[in-house]
Protein backbone atom coordinates (compact mmCIF):
# COMPACT_ATOMS: atom_id res chain seq x y z
CA UNK A 1 0.00 0.00 0.00
CA UNK A 2 2.60 2.43 -1.14
CA UNK A 3 0.66 5.65 -1.48
CA UNK A 4 -2.02 5.80 1.09
CA UNK A 5 0.62 7.85 2.84
CA UNK A 6 0.29 11.27 1.26
CA UNK A 7 2.95 12.30 -1.16
CA UNK A 8 4.15 15.42 0.56
CA UNK A 9 6.42 16.69 -2.10
CA UNK A 10 6.12 16.18 -5.80
CA UNK A 11 9.85 15.70 -5.98
CA UNK A 12 9.83 12.74 -3.66
CA UNK A 13 10.14 10.40 -6.59
CA UNK A 14 13.53 11.94 -7.23
CA UNK A 15 14.59 11.83 -3.62
CA UNK A 16 15.33 8.16 -4.08
CA UNK A 17 18.78 9.38 -4.97
CA UNK A 18 18.60 12.71 -3.26
CA UNK A 19 21.65 14.37 -4.58
CA UNK A 20 21.19 12.76 -7.96
CA UNK A 21 22.06 15.09 -10.72
CA UNK A 22 20.14 13.36 -13.50
CA UNK A 23 17.15 15.72 -13.55
CA UNK A 24 19.48 18.70 -13.38
CA UNK A 25 21.69 17.38 -16.14
CA UNK A 26 18.70 16.74 -18.38
CA UNK A 27 16.83 19.95 -17.65
CA UNK A 28 19.65 22.46 -17.72
CA UNK A 29 20.61 22.05 -21.40
CA UNK A 30 16.92 22.08 -22.34
CA UNK A 31 16.38 25.32 -20.44
CA UNK A 32 19.41 26.88 -22.06
CA UNK A 33 18.31 25.74 -25.52
CA UNK A 34 14.86 27.19 -25.02
CA UNK A 35 16.31 30.46 -23.70
CA UNK A 36 18.70 30.59 -26.64
CA UNK A 37 15.74 30.19 -28.95
CA UNK A 38 13.91 32.96 -27.14
CA UNK A 39 16.88 35.25 -27.63
CA UNK A 40 17.77 34.19 -31.14
CA UNK A 41 14.59 33.62 -33.09
CA UNK A 42 13.56 36.49 -35.30
CA UNK A 43 9.83 35.84 -35.23
CA UNK A 44 8.56 37.48 -32.04
CA UNK A 45 5.78 35.00 -31.29
CA UNK A 46 8.17 32.08 -31.55
CA UNK A 47 10.55 33.84 -29.18
CA UNK A 48 7.76 34.49 -26.70
CA UNK A 49 6.56 30.88 -26.83
CA UNK A 50 10.11 29.63 -26.34
CA UNK A 51 10.37 31.90 -23.32
CA UNK A 52 7.20 30.29 -21.97
CA UNK A 53 8.79 26.88 -22.57
CA UNK A 54 11.98 27.83 -20.73
CA UNK A 55 9.97 29.22 -17.82
CA UNK A 56 7.96 26.02 -17.67
CA UNK A 57 11.14 23.95 -17.68
CA UNK A 58 12.56 26.06 -14.86
CA UNK A 59 9.36 25.36 -12.94
CA UNK A 60 9.88 21.63 -13.52
CA UNK A 61 13.46 22.08 -12.28
CA UNK A 62 12.17 23.60 -9.06
CA UNK A 63 9.74 20.71 -8.68
CA UNK A 64 12.48 18.11 -9.04
CA UNK A 65 14.72 19.89 -6.55
CA UNK A 66 12.09 19.93 -3.85
CA UNK A 67 10.80 23.48 -3.86
CA UNK A 68 7.43 22.37 -5.19
CA UNK A 69 5.50 25.35 -3.83
CA UNK A 70 7.83 27.70 -5.66
CA UNK A 71 7.71 25.52 -8.75
CA UNK A 72 3.92 25.62 -8.91
CA UNK A 73 3.89 29.37 -8.19
CA UNK A 74 6.45 29.87 -10.97
CA UNK A 75 4.23 27.89 -13.31
CA UNK A 76 1.11 29.77 -12.35
CA UNK A 77 2.58 33.26 -12.39
CA UNK A 78 5.26 33.13 -15.06
CA UNK A 79 3.84 30.66 -17.56
CA UNK A 80 0.22 31.39 -16.82
CA UNK A 81 0.33 35.16 -16.44
CA UNK A 82 3.56 36.80 -17.62
CA UNK A 83 3.95 34.67 -20.76
CA UNK A 84 0.26 35.15 -21.59
CA UNK A 85 0.70 38.91 -21.11
CA UNK A 86 3.66 38.93 -23.45
CA UNK A 87 1.96 36.96 -26.22
CA UNK A 88 -1.19 39.02 -25.82
CA UNK A 89 0.66 42.27 -26.30
CA UNK A 90 2.44 40.71 -29.28
CA UNK A 91 -1.00 39.93 -30.70
CA UNK A 92 -2.04 43.53 -30.22
CA UNK A 93 1.06 45.20 -31.57
CA UNK A 94 1.63 42.71 -34.43
CA UNK A 95 5.31 43.17 -35.14
CA UNK A 96 6.11 41.64 -38.46
CA UNK A 97 9.42 42.83 -39.82
CA UNK A 98 11.69 39.88 -39.40
CA UNK A 99 13.52 40.48 -42.64
CA UNK A 100 14.80 43.74 -41.23
CA UNK A 101 15.79 42.02 -38.03
CA UNK A 102 17.66 39.33 -39.87
CA UNK A 103 19.44 41.93 -42.00
CA UNK A 104 20.89 43.77 -39.08
CA UNK A 105 21.55 40.53 -37.22
CA UNK A 106 25.33 40.22 -37.72
CA UNK A 107 26.09 43.71 -36.47
CA UNK A 108 23.73 43.57 -33.53
CA UNK A 109 24.99 40.14 -32.49
CA UNK A 110 28.58 41.33 -32.54
CA UNK A 111 27.69 44.38 -30.45
CA UNK A 112 25.73 42.24 -28.02
CA UNK A 113 28.49 39.68 -27.64
CA UNK A 114 31.10 42.35 -27.09
CA UNK A 115 29.05 43.76 -24.23
CA UNK A 116 27.98 40.41 -22.82
CA UNK A 117 31.09 38.26 -22.93
CA UNK A 118 32.92 40.21 -20.21
CA UNK A 119 29.92 39.72 -17.90
CA UNK A 120 29.91 36.01 -18.74
CA UNK A 121 33.61 35.79 -18.04
CA UNK A 122 33.27 37.45 -14.65
CA UNK A 123 30.37 35.20 -13.63
CA UNK A 124 32.09 32.00 -14.79
CA UNK A 125 35.21 33.08 -12.93
CA UNK A 126 33.23 33.58 -9.72
CA UNK A 127 31.43 30.26 -10.05
CA UNK A 128 34.60 28.34 -10.71
CA UNK A 129 36.22 29.80 -7.62
CA UNK A 130 33.31 28.63 -5.48
CA UNK A 131 35.45 26.05 -3.82
CA UNK A 132 34.51 24.85 -0.42
CA UNK A 133 31.14 25.80 0.87
CA UNK A 134 30.33 25.07 4.53
CA UNK A 135 28.96 21.62 5.01
CA UNK A 136 26.32 20.27 3.21
CA UNK A 137 23.03 19.96 1.83
CA UNK A 138 20.33 18.61 4.07
CA UNK A 139 18.72 15.63 2.43
CA UNK A 140 15.19 16.94 2.14
CA UNK A 141 14.96 20.50 3.37
CA UNK A 142 11.75 21.19 5.21
CA UNK A 143 9.22 22.94 3.05
CA UNK A 144 5.70 22.64 4.28
CA UNK A 145 3.18 25.21 3.22
CA UNK A 146 2.17 25.81 6.82
CA UNK A 147 5.76 26.70 7.61
CA UNK A 148 5.92 29.06 4.66
CA UNK A 149 2.73 30.75 5.77
CA UNK A 150 3.97 31.16 9.28
CA UNK A 151 7.30 32.64 8.29
CA UNK A 152 5.69 34.89 5.69
CA UNK A 153 3.17 36.40 8.03
CA UNK A 154 5.27 36.73 11.13
CA UNK A 155 8.78 37.56 10.03
CA UNK A 156 8.18 38.93 6.57
CA UNK A 157 4.78 40.53 7.21
CA UNK A 158 5.94 44.09 6.34
CA UNK A 159 7.33 42.80 3.04
CA UNK A 160 4.04 41.06 2.26
CA UNK A 161 2.12 44.25 2.97
CA UNK A 162 4.45 46.30 0.80
CA UNK A 163 4.16 43.82 -2.07
CA UNK A 164 0.38 43.92 -1.70
CA UNK A 165 0.34 47.69 -1.96
CA UNK A 166 2.71 47.48 -4.91
CA UNK A 167 0.51 45.00 -6.77
CA UNK A 168 -2.60 47.09 -6.13
CA UNK A 169 -0.83 50.18 -7.43
CA UNK A 170 0.35 48.23 -10.47
CA UNK A 171 -3.17 47.04 -11.19
CA UNK A 172 -4.63 50.51 -10.94
CA UNK A 173 -1.79 52.02 -12.94
CA UNK A 174 -1.98 49.46 -15.72
CA UNK A 175 -5.74 49.90 -15.96
CA UNK A 176 -5.30 53.65 -16.21
CA UNK A 177 -2.59 53.27 -18.84
CA UNK A 178 -4.63 50.93 -20.93
CA UNK A 179 -7.65 53.19 -21.17
CA UNK A 180 -8.18 54.92 -24.43
CA UNK A 181 -7.13 58.53 -24.00
CA UNK A 182 -9.78 61.16 -24.19
CA UNK A 183 -12.78 58.94 -23.71
CA UNK A 184 -14.79 58.99 -20.53
CA UNK A 185 -15.63 55.52 -19.27
CA UNK A 186 -19.12 54.83 -20.39
CA UNK A 187 -21.39 51.88 -20.23
CA UNK A 188 -23.42 50.90 -23.25
CA UNK A 189 -26.91 52.21 -22.86
CA UNK A 190 -28.61 49.50 -24.82
CA UNK A 191 -29.01 45.94 -23.68
Amino acid at each position, binding site marked *: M*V*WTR*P*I*GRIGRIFSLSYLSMTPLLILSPLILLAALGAVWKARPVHAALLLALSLALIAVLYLTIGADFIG*LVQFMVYVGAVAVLIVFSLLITRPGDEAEELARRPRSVVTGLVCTLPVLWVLVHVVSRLGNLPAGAVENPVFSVAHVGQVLFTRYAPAVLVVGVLLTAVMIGAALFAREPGKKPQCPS*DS
Partner: protein
Amino acid sequence: MSLLDRLQQAAPALWSPEWLPRLPQRLVEILLQYFGAPGWLVTLAGFLVAAATVVAVFLSGFALLSLVERKTLARIQNRIGPNRAGWFGILQPVADGIKMLTKEDIVPAKAEWFLHLAAPILIVVPSILALGVIPYGREWVPVPLELGLLFFFAAGTLTELSVFMAGWASGSKFPMLGAMRAISQMVSYELPLMISALGVIMVTGSLSLPAIVAKQAGFHLGFIPAWNLFTPWGLSAGLIFYVASIAEANRCPFDLPEGESEIVAGHMTEYSGFKYALFFMGEYLGLFAISGLGITLFLGGWQAPLPGLGCVPSWLWFFAKMVVVIMSYLWIRGTFPRVRIDQLMRFAWLCLIPMALLTLPAAAIWHYVGGGLLGWLTTVPLLLIPWVILTVLYNRRMAPATRTYTFAES
Protein backbone atom coordinates in the same frame (compact mmCIF):
# COMPACT_ATOMS: atom_id res chain seq x y z
CA MET B 1 2.74 -17.39 -0.28
CA SER B 2 0.65 -18.35 -3.22
CA LEU B 3 -1.24 -15.83 -5.21
CA LEU B 4 -4.56 -16.96 -3.83
CA ASP B 5 -3.27 -16.48 -0.28
CA ARG B 6 -2.13 -12.97 -1.06
CA LEU B 7 -5.46 -12.09 -2.57
CA GLN B 8 -7.25 -13.52 0.43
CA GLN B 9 -4.99 -11.63 2.80
CA ALA B 10 -5.76 -8.33 1.11
CA ALA B 11 -9.45 -9.22 0.96
CA PRO B 12 -11.27 -6.52 2.97
CA ALA B 13 -9.24 -3.76 1.44
CA LEU B 14 -9.67 -5.17 -2.02
CA TRP B 15 -13.13 -6.53 -2.59
CA SER B 16 -15.32 -4.15 -0.62
CA PRO B 17 -17.41 -1.65 -2.64
CA GLU B 18 -15.47 1.23 -1.13
CA TRP B 19 -12.29 -0.05 -2.73
CA LEU B 20 -13.83 -0.84 -6.12
CA PRO B 21 -12.17 2.04 -8.02
CA ARG B 22 -8.77 0.98 -6.70
CA LEU B 23 -9.29 -2.65 -7.71
CA PRO B 24 -7.27 -2.65 -10.95
CA GLN B 25 -4.42 -0.83 -9.28
CA ARG B 26 -4.29 -3.11 -6.24
CA LEU B 27 -4.57 -6.24 -8.39
CA VAL B 28 -1.64 -5.18 -10.54
CA GLU B 29 0.35 -4.34 -7.42
CA ILE B 30 -0.30 -7.71 -5.83
CA LEU B 31 0.47 -9.55 -9.06
CA LEU B 32 3.77 -7.77 -9.47
CA GLN B 33 4.74 -8.30 -5.87
CA TYR B 34 3.96 -11.99 -6.24
CA PHE B 35 6.25 -12.21 -9.22
CA GLY B 36 8.97 -10.50 -7.25
CA ALA B 37 9.23 -7.20 -9.06
CA PRO B 38 11.41 -4.50 -7.46
CA GLY B 39 9.71 -1.83 -5.37
CA TRP B 40 10.05 0.97 -7.86
CA LEU B 41 8.44 -1.11 -10.61
CA VAL B 42 5.46 -1.89 -8.40
CA THR B 43 5.06 1.81 -7.61
CA LEU B 44 5.39 2.83 -11.25
CA ALA B 45 2.96 0.17 -12.46
CA GLY B 46 0.47 1.17 -9.78
CA PHE B 47 0.67 4.82 -10.81
CA LEU B 48 0.22 3.92 -14.47
CA VAL B 49 -2.83 1.77 -13.73
CA ALA B 50 -4.34 4.51 -11.55
CA ALA B 51 -3.81 7.07 -14.30
CA ALA B 52 -5.27 4.68 -16.86
CA THR B 53 -8.34 4.11 -14.64
CA VAL B 54 -8.95 7.85 -14.27
CA VAL B 55 -8.52 8.44 -18.00
CA ALA B 56 -10.74 5.50 -18.92
CA VAL B 57 -13.52 6.55 -16.54
CA PHE B 58 -13.52 10.13 -17.68
CA LEU B 59 -13.20 9.40 -21.36
CA SER B 60 -16.24 7.18 -21.24
CA GLY B 61 -17.90 9.91 -19.20
CA PHE B 62 -16.99 12.34 -21.95
CA ALA B 63 -18.55 10.10 -24.57
CA LEU B 64 -21.71 9.71 -22.51
CA LEU B 65 -21.84 13.44 -21.75
CA SER B 66 -21.68 14.41 -25.40
CA LEU B 67 -24.80 12.34 -26.01
CA VAL B 68 -26.58 13.43 -22.83
CA GLU B 69 -25.85 17.06 -23.60
CA ARG B 70 -27.33 16.85 -27.06
CA LYS B 71 -30.43 15.06 -25.82
CA THR B 72 -30.90 17.49 -22.92
CA LEU B 73 -30.45 20.56 -25.07
CA ALA B 74 -32.83 19.04 -27.58
CA ARG B 75 -35.52 18.48 -24.98
CA ILE B 76 -35.08 22.02 -23.66
CA GLN B 77 -35.47 23.27 -27.21
CA ASN B 78 -38.56 21.11 -27.76
CA ARG B 79 -37.03 18.61 -30.12
CA ILE B 80 -35.79 15.04 -29.75
CA GLY B 81 -32.07 14.99 -30.37
CA PRO B 82 -29.99 12.17 -31.83
CA ASN B 83 -32.01 8.94 -31.87
CA ARG B 84 -30.81 7.23 -35.03
CA ALA B 85 -27.61 5.58 -33.96
CA GLY B 86 -28.88 2.77 -31.76
CA TRP B 87 -31.62 2.65 -29.17
CA PHE B 88 -32.29 6.22 -28.02
CA GLY B 89 -29.11 7.32 -29.77
CA ILE B 90 -26.87 5.46 -27.36
CA LEU B 91 -24.36 4.65 -30.09
CA GLN B 92 -24.14 8.29 -31.19
CA PRO B 93 -20.77 8.84 -29.44
CA VAL B 94 -19.40 5.84 -31.32
CA ALA B 95 -20.67 7.31 -34.58
CA ASP B 96 -19.16 10.67 -33.66
CA GLY B 97 -15.85 9.04 -32.87
CA ILE B 98 -15.73 7.18 -36.16
CA LYS B 99 -16.59 10.37 -38.00
CA MET B 100 -13.92 12.40 -36.25
CA LEU B 101 -11.25 9.79 -36.77
CA THR B 102 -11.91 9.28 -40.44
CA LYS B 103 -12.15 12.93 -41.41
CA GLU B 104 -9.39 14.49 -43.43
CA ASP B 105 -6.93 16.42 -41.31
CA ILE B 106 -6.62 19.78 -43.00
CA VAL B 107 -3.80 22.11 -41.98
CA PRO B 108 -4.00 25.50 -43.69
CA ALA B 109 -1.04 26.51 -45.83
CA LYS B 110 -0.37 29.62 -43.76
CA ALA B 111 -0.48 27.73 -40.49
CA GLU B 112 2.50 26.76 -38.39
CA TRP B 113 2.14 23.01 -38.46
CA PHE B 114 4.03 22.24 -35.28
CA LEU B 115 2.08 24.64 -33.07
CA HIS B 116 -1.09 23.68 -34.91
CA LEU B 117 -0.44 20.08 -33.89
CA ALA B 118 0.76 20.83 -30.37
CA ALA B 119 -2.11 23.09 -29.34
CA PRO B 120 -4.90 20.48 -29.07
CA ILE B 121 -2.56 18.15 -27.18
CA LEU B 122 -1.60 20.92 -24.78
CA ILE B 123 -5.27 21.62 -24.14
CA VAL B 124 -6.10 18.05 -23.22
CA VAL B 125 -3.03 17.46 -21.05
CA PRO B 126 -3.79 20.03 -18.29
CA SER B 127 -7.35 18.77 -17.95
CA ILE B 128 -6.15 15.21 -17.43
CA LEU B 129 -3.44 16.40 -15.04
CA ALA B 130 -6.02 18.31 -13.04
CA LEU B 131 -8.26 15.23 -12.86
CA GLY B 132 -5.49 13.43 -11.04
CA VAL B 133 -5.57 15.34 -7.77
CA ILE B 134 -9.29 15.28 -7.01
CA PRO B 135 -10.42 12.92 -4.24
CA TYR B 136 -13.12 10.72 -5.74
CA GLY B 137 -13.73 8.58 -2.72
CA ARG B 138 -12.58 7.92 0.80
CA GLU B 139 -9.81 5.66 -0.43
CA TRP B 140 -9.27 7.01 -3.87
CA VAL B 141 -7.16 10.03 -4.72
CA PRO B 142 -5.06 9.22 -7.76
CA VAL B 143 -2.24 11.48 -6.56
CA PRO B 144 -2.56 12.73 -2.97
CA LEU B 145 -0.52 15.93 -3.15
CA GLU B 146 0.01 18.25 -0.24
CA LEU B 147 -0.31 21.14 -2.69
CA GLY B 148 -3.22 19.65 -4.63
CA LEU B 149 -5.24 22.84 -5.08
CA LEU B 150 -2.22 24.82 -6.24
CA PHE B 151 -1.38 22.05 -8.71
CA PHE B 152 -4.94 22.19 -10.05
CA PHE B 153 -4.79 25.92 -10.67
CA ALA B 154 -1.31 25.72 -12.17
CA ALA B 155 -2.58 23.08 -14.61
CA GLY B 156 -5.48 25.36 -15.46
CA THR B 157 -3.27 28.27 -16.40
CA LEU B 158 -1.53 26.16 -19.02
CA THR B 159 -4.81 26.03 -20.95
CA GLU B 160 -4.67 29.77 -21.69
CA LEU B 161 -1.34 29.55 -23.45
CA SER B 162 -2.55 26.55 -25.46
CA VAL B 163 -5.65 28.45 -26.59
CA PHE B 164 -3.41 31.25 -27.79
CA MET B 165 -1.23 28.76 -29.63
CA ALA B 166 -4.29 27.25 -31.28
CA GLY B 167 -5.53 30.65 -32.39
CA TRP B 168 -2.25 32.08 -33.56
CA ALA B 169 -0.91 28.98 -35.23
CA SER B 170 -3.94 28.72 -37.47
CA GLY B 171 -2.81 31.80 -39.30
CA SER B 172 -6.19 33.35 -40.04
CA LYS B 173 -8.38 36.07 -38.61
CA PHE B 174 -11.24 34.24 -36.95
CA PRO B 175 -9.02 32.01 -34.84
CA MET B 176 -6.91 34.97 -33.77
CA LEU B 177 -9.97 36.94 -32.70
CA GLY B 178 -11.35 33.92 -30.93
CA ALA B 179 -8.03 33.34 -29.15
CA MET B 180 -7.87 36.96 -27.97
CA ARG B 181 -11.39 36.78 -26.63
CA ALA B 182 -10.77 33.41 -25.03
CA ILE B 183 -7.60 34.54 -23.27
CA SER B 184 -9.14 37.73 -21.93
CA GLN B 185 -12.15 35.80 -20.71
CA MET B 186 -10.12 33.06 -19.07
CA VAL B 187 -7.74 35.48 -17.39
CA SER B 188 -10.58 37.64 -16.08
CA TYR B 189 -12.51 34.73 -14.63
CA GLU B 190 -9.54 33.02 -13.09
CA LEU B 191 -9.39 35.67 -10.41
CA PRO B 192 -12.85 35.05 -8.90
CA LEU B 193 -12.20 31.31 -9.19
CA MET B 194 -9.00 31.48 -7.17
CA ILE B 195 -10.18 34.06 -4.66
CA SER B 196 -13.30 32.06 -3.86
CA ALA B 197 -11.10 29.01 -3.32
CA LEU B 198 -8.93 31.07 -0.97
CA GLY B 199 -11.70 31.25 1.60
CA VAL B 200 -11.89 27.47 1.68
CA ILE B 201 -8.12 27.20 2.09
CA MET B 202 -8.21 29.70 4.92
CA VAL B 203 -10.87 27.85 6.87
CA THR B 204 -9.38 24.42 6.24
CA GLY B 205 -5.78 25.44 6.82
CA SER B 206 -4.43 23.22 4.08
CA LEU B 207 -4.01 23.13 0.32
CA SER B 208 -4.49 19.37 0.18
CA LEU B 209 -7.80 18.36 -1.38
CA PRO B 210 -8.34 15.20 0.74
CA ALA B 211 -7.86 17.39 3.83
CA ILE B 212 -10.44 19.88 2.56
CA VAL B 213 -12.94 17.07 2.10
CA ALA B 214 -12.15 15.61 5.51
CA LYS B 215 -12.81 19.00 7.14
CA GLN B 216 -16.36 18.95 5.77
CA ALA B 217 -17.30 15.79 7.63
CA GLY B 218 -19.98 15.76 10.25
CA PHE B 219 -23.46 17.15 10.52
CA HIS B 220 -24.94 20.25 12.16
CA LEU B 221 -28.19 19.84 14.08
CA GLY B 222 -28.10 16.16 13.28
CA PHE B 223 -29.08 16.32 9.64
CA ILE B 224 -27.50 19.34 7.88
CA PRO B 225 -24.15 18.32 6.42
CA ALA B 226 -21.19 20.45 7.38
CA TRP B 227 -20.36 21.23 3.78
CA ASN B 228 -18.83 24.56 2.93
CA LEU B 229 -21.82 25.48 0.79
CA PHE B 230 -24.05 25.66 3.85
CA THR B 231 -22.13 28.53 5.43
CA PRO B 232 -22.73 32.15 4.37
CA TRP B 233 -19.24 32.70 3.02
CA GLY B 234 -19.36 29.25 1.45
CA LEU B 235 -22.62 29.98 -0.30
CA SER B 236 -21.28 33.22 -1.70
CA ALA B 237 -17.93 31.72 -2.66
CA GLY B 238 -19.63 28.62 -4.08
CA LEU B 239 -21.90 30.63 -6.34
CA ILE B 240 -18.99 32.74 -7.52
CA PHE B 241 -16.96 29.59 -8.16
CA TYR B 242 -19.87 28.10 -10.09
CA VAL B 243 -20.27 31.09 -12.38
CA ALA B 244 -16.53 31.50 -12.86
CA SER B 245 -16.20 27.81 -13.69
CA ILE B 246 -18.76 28.15 -16.47
CA ALA B 247 -16.67 30.99 -17.86
CA GLU B 248 -13.41 29.10 -17.44
CA ALA B 249 -14.78 26.14 -19.34
CA ASN B 250 -16.01 28.40 -22.16
CA ARG B 251 -19.58 27.16 -21.81
CA CYS B 252 -22.70 29.05 -22.74
CA PRO B 253 -23.57 31.78 -21.60
CA PHE B 254 -19.86 32.53 -21.66
CA ASP B 255 -19.00 30.73 -24.87
CA LEU B 256 -18.03 33.85 -26.77
CA PRO B 257 -14.69 32.34 -27.83
CA GLU B 258 -16.50 29.60 -29.69
CA GLY B 259 -19.65 31.45 -30.61
CA GLU B 260 -20.78 29.75 -33.75
CA SER B 261 -22.92 32.55 -34.99
CA GLU B 262 -20.17 35.13 -34.70
CA ILE B 263 -16.67 33.89 -35.30
CA VAL B 264 -17.31 30.44 -36.76
CA ALA B 265 -15.62 28.36 -34.09
CA GLY B 266 -13.16 30.81 -32.63
CA HIS B 267 -9.76 29.34 -32.02
CA MET B 268 -10.93 25.94 -33.23
CA THR B 269 -11.96 27.12 -36.70
CA GLU B 270 -9.06 25.70 -38.69
CA TYR B 271 -9.13 22.34 -36.99
CA SER B 272 -10.78 19.26 -38.42
CA GLY B 273 -11.03 15.61 -37.61
CA PHE B 274 -9.24 14.23 -34.63
CA LYS B 275 -7.72 17.56 -33.54
CA TYR B 276 -11.19 19.02 -33.26
CA ALA B 277 -12.22 15.98 -31.27
CA LEU B 278 -9.26 16.67 -28.97
CA PHE B 279 -10.48 20.24 -28.41
CA PHE B 280 -13.93 18.94 -27.65
CA MET B 281 -12.45 16.38 -25.30
CA GLY B 282 -10.31 18.97 -23.58
CA GLU B 283 -13.29 21.20 -22.99
CA TYR B 284 -15.40 18.42 -21.51
CA LEU B 285 -12.59 16.97 -19.41
CA GLY B 286 -11.93 20.48 -18.12
CA LEU B 287 -15.61 20.67 -17.25
CA PHE B 288 -15.34 17.42 -15.30
CA ALA B 289 -12.21 18.64 -13.56
CA ILE B 290 -13.55 21.97 -12.50
CA SER B 291 -16.91 20.62 -11.39
CA GLY B 292 -15.02 17.96 -9.44
CA LEU B 293 -13.01 20.72 -7.78
CA GLY B 294 -16.15 22.68 -6.97
CA ILE B 295 -17.70 19.59 -5.41
CA THR B 296 -14.55 18.99 -3.38
CA LEU B 297 -14.31 22.56 -2.15
CA PHE B 298 -17.93 23.36 -1.47
CA LEU B 299 -20.14 20.29 -1.63
CA GLY B 300 -18.16 18.07 0.68
CA GLY B 301 -16.54 15.87 -1.93
CA TRP B 302 -17.42 12.26 -1.27
CA GLN B 303 -19.28 12.90 2.01
CA ALA B 304 -22.82 11.57 2.23
CA PRO B 305 -25.59 14.16 2.59
CA LEU B 306 -27.44 12.48 5.45
CA PRO B 307 -26.04 10.68 8.51
CA GLY B 308 -27.51 7.28 7.81
CA LEU B 309 -26.28 6.96 4.25
CA GLY B 310 -22.69 6.12 5.04
CA CYS B 311 -23.12 2.56 3.80
CA VAL B 312 -23.27 3.72 0.20
CA PRO B 313 -19.73 3.83 -1.22
CA SER B 314 -18.25 7.31 -1.07
CA TRP B 315 -17.31 7.46 -4.74
CA LEU B 316 -20.98 6.96 -5.66
CA TRP B 317 -21.84 10.13 -3.73
CA PHE B 318 -19.10 12.00 -5.53
CA PHE B 319 -20.30 10.92 -8.95
CA ALA B 320 -23.93 11.60 -8.02
CA LYS B 321 -23.00 15.16 -7.07
CA MET B 322 -21.02 15.47 -10.27
CA VAL B 323 -24.04 14.35 -12.28
CA VAL B 324 -26.18 17.00 -10.58
CA VAL B 325 -23.63 19.76 -11.20
CA ILE B 326 -23.07 18.81 -14.83
CA MET B 327 -26.80 18.61 -15.52
CA SER B 328 -27.11 22.11 -14.10
CA TYR B 329 -24.39 23.25 -16.52
CA LEU B 330 -26.39 21.71 -19.40
CA TRP B 331 -29.57 23.34 -18.15
CA ILE B 332 -27.90 26.72 -18.04
CA ARG B 333 -26.50 26.20 -21.52
CA GLY B 334 -29.92 25.56 -22.91
CA THR B 335 -31.57 28.43 -21.14
CA PHE B 336 -29.39 31.53 -21.18
CA PRO B 337 -28.36 33.64 -24.16
CA ARG B 338 -24.75 34.41 -24.79
CA VAL B 339 -23.29 37.49 -23.08
CA ARG B 340 -21.40 40.16 -24.95
CA ILE B 341 -17.69 40.66 -24.39
CA ASP B 342 -18.03 43.93 -22.52
CA GLN B 343 -20.85 42.58 -20.39
CA LEU B 344 -18.65 39.60 -19.64
CA MET B 345 -15.70 41.75 -18.56
CA ARG B 346 -17.84 44.12 -16.56
CA PHE B 347 -19.47 41.21 -14.78
CA ALA B 348 -16.14 39.67 -13.88
CA TRP B 349 -14.32 42.77 -12.75
CA LEU B 350 -17.11 44.82 -11.20
CA CYS B 351 -19.30 42.16 -9.68
CA LEU B 352 -17.58 38.82 -9.18
CA ILE B 353 -14.21 40.08 -7.96
CA PRO B 354 -15.58 42.47 -5.28
CA MET B 355 -17.93 39.75 -4.03
CA ALA B 356 -15.12 37.20 -4.04
CA LEU B 357 -12.88 39.58 -2.12
CA LEU B 358 -15.65 40.05 0.42
CA THR B 359 -15.88 36.32 1.08
CA LEU B 360 -12.32 36.44 2.49
CA PRO B 361 -13.06 38.58 5.55
CA ALA B 362 -16.37 36.75 5.90
CA ALA B 363 -14.55 33.41 6.02
CA ALA B 364 -12.02 34.85 8.44
CA ILE B 365 -14.70 36.16 10.77
CA TRP B 366 -16.58 32.86 10.54
CA HIS B 367 -13.45 30.89 11.39
CA TYR B 368 -12.52 33.20 14.25
CA VAL B 369 -15.98 33.22 15.76
CA GLY B 370 -16.23 29.47 15.32
CA GLY B 371 -19.29 29.15 13.17
CA GLY B 372 -22.78 28.73 14.51
CA LEU B 373 -25.40 31.39 15.07
CA LEU B 374 -22.93 34.18 15.90
CA GLY B 375 -21.07 33.40 12.71
CA TRP B 376 -24.25 33.67 10.66
CA LEU B 377 -25.24 36.91 12.37
CA THR B 378 -21.91 38.60 11.74
CA THR B 379 -21.09 37.40 8.24
CA VAL B 380 -24.46 37.56 6.51
CA PRO B 381 -24.71 41.40 6.63
CA LEU B 382 -21.10 41.66 5.48
CA LEU B 383 -21.99 39.70 2.35
CA LEU B 384 -25.59 40.68 1.79
CA ILE B 385 -25.36 44.45 1.95
CA PRO B 386 -22.65 44.90 -0.71
CA TRP B 387 -24.47 42.35 -2.86
CA VAL B 388 -27.69 44.35 -2.65
CA ILE B 389 -25.82 47.57 -3.40
CA LEU B 390 -24.12 46.00 -6.43
CA THR B 391 -27.41 44.61 -7.72
CA VAL B 392 -29.24 47.89 -7.29
CA LEU B 393 -26.43 49.78 -8.99
CA TYR B 394 -26.39 47.27 -11.83
CA ASN B 395 -30.10 47.43 -12.35
CA ARG B 396 -30.04 51.17 -12.40
CA ARG B 397 -27.18 51.53 -14.89
CA MET B 398 -26.86 48.40 -16.89
CA ALA B 399 -30.07 46.50 -17.11
CA PRO B 400 -31.85 46.64 -20.43
CA ALA B 401 -34.83 48.92 -20.66
CA THR B 402 -38.30 47.41 -20.78
CA ARG B 403 -39.07 46.52 -24.33
CA THR B 404 -42.12 47.93 -25.96
CA TYR B 405 -43.41 46.04 -28.92
CA THR B 406 -45.28 47.61 -31.77
CA PHE B 407 -47.27 45.11 -33.74
CA ALA B 408 -48.63 45.71 -37.17
CA GLU B 409 -52.31 46.53 -37.01
CA SER B 410 -54.81 44.46 -38.93
